[in-house]
């Protein structure tokens, strides 16, 4: 075996934006590849969503829920309850898995903190996109949800999912080293997610009833603004959480 003498790198420098984005993409691809091989988070989330949809389907059949303003609100609430709890089941996985497999040290030494946050955020967003799609289809089929405006409905699910991803990513980083991770995750997520969930439920109910985007425009604006605020704050705070 031969050993080559290699020239060490120059002194450390603040990573450029492009370097951070490339590193974030690498974190996302690594986590996605691991997830596709283990299916740990996705299986748990989809199973939870499917079970909830079946239970809700049985329950609403017994009640004989007829289409009304209240019925639409109930359907929208149940859809978001399923999405929220399925998300809480799986979205902490990114950081918790790193902690459980003790790979955090290797990642901390190699990756810029902002890249880690962005990569994990992208993974949560991708998982929520799949989860939102599957849960919505299950509700439409099993709970016989009729969608007034498919575009408004899709945008409400996407904007709500954006809020969930932005909030749960930083919370997952906070709870990764704690005991009772799942319980703590739910407790911390609840106050942060209640305001956007109320808006998401109302907006989704409206999208089930009406055709067109105008009735949900305000709700969409609120959810996007809330997501941006949470995302930017989380990105600024992440370094302190990561290096604590």
């Amino acid at each position, binding site marked *: *075996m*031969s*050993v*080559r*003498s*290699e*020239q*060490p*790198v*120059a*002194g*450390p*420098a603040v*990573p450029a934006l492009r*370097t951070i984005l*490339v*590193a974030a*993409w*690498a*974190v996302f*691809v*690594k986590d996605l*590849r*691991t997830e596709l*091989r*283990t299916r740990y988070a996705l299986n748990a989330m989809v199973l939870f969503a499917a079970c909830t949809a079946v239970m809700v389907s049985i329950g609403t059949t017994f009640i004989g829920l007829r289409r009304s303003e209240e019925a639409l609100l109930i359907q929208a609430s149940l859809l978001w309850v399923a999405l929220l709890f399925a998300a809480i089941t799986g979205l902490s996985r990114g950081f918790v898995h790193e902690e459980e*497999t*003790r*790979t955090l*040290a*290797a*990642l*901390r*030494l*190699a*990756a*810029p903190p902002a*890249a880690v946050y962005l990569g994990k955020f992208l993974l949560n967003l991708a998982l929520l996109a799949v989860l939102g799609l599957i849960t919505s289809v299950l509700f439409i089929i099993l709970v016989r949800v009729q969608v007034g405006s498919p575009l408004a409905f899709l945008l409400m699910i996407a904007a709500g999912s954006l809020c969930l991803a932005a909030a749960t990513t930083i919370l997952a980083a906070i709870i990764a080293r704690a005991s009772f991770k799942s319980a703590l995750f739910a407790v911390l997520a609840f106050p942060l997610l209640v305001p956007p969930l109320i808006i998401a439920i109302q907006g989704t109910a409206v999208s089930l009833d009406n055709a067109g985007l105008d009735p949900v425009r305000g709700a969409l604006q609120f959810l996007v603004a809330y997501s941006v605020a949470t995302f930017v704050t989380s990105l600024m705070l992440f370094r302190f959480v990561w*290096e604590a």
Partner: protein
Amino acid sequence: MHAVDIRLTVEGVAAGYGARTLFSAVALELRAGEALVVSGPNGSGKSTFLRLLAGLQRPEAGQISYATGGVAYTPREAAPLIGWVAPDLMLYRDLTARENLRFFAAVRGLRRDDAAIDALLDRVGLGGRGDDRLATYSSGMVQRLRYAYALLHRPAVLLLDEPTVTLDERGAGVVESVIAAQRRAGIVVIATNDPRELRHGDLVLQLDA
């Protein structure tokens, strides 16, 4: 003549867990081309000292800095200059060795093509096993891959905690050659209980439990 101008300064450093102090008032200075061996019984804080040097932990007192090009950096800031090998260092078991190295090269902002990664895997004795997942590796093979991880960015400072643990004779030979190459390129710090490894040190830091 050394490849890089690097200096490690440790001033009055103390560390402990809770009420228990592991060590205190540790002070030393290392320059490129020098090697430090940290020795002491189990629980004396050898691994903790290396974690402080790597910036993975903060000291309870004192300061650690790396100076290069006339600028001083904290261990956290100096992460791109540091390579760390330790039993605590875990890589991704669900990825192959090649995927692990590609990933760490990407997050470090390095360009490493397949040929470069193959050369590194050959160097640590994992040639031909790069496409196997780490879950199928023996503990000795994982230790070899830790060296590939630590050398990937050609660090100026190499921190080795129990460098030959789980390695066979050929693996120990790889470590010998890595240490020799690193001494030509920068600083090497070794934490060990093995009396045979004491000879690597220009300086020996003896920690007591």
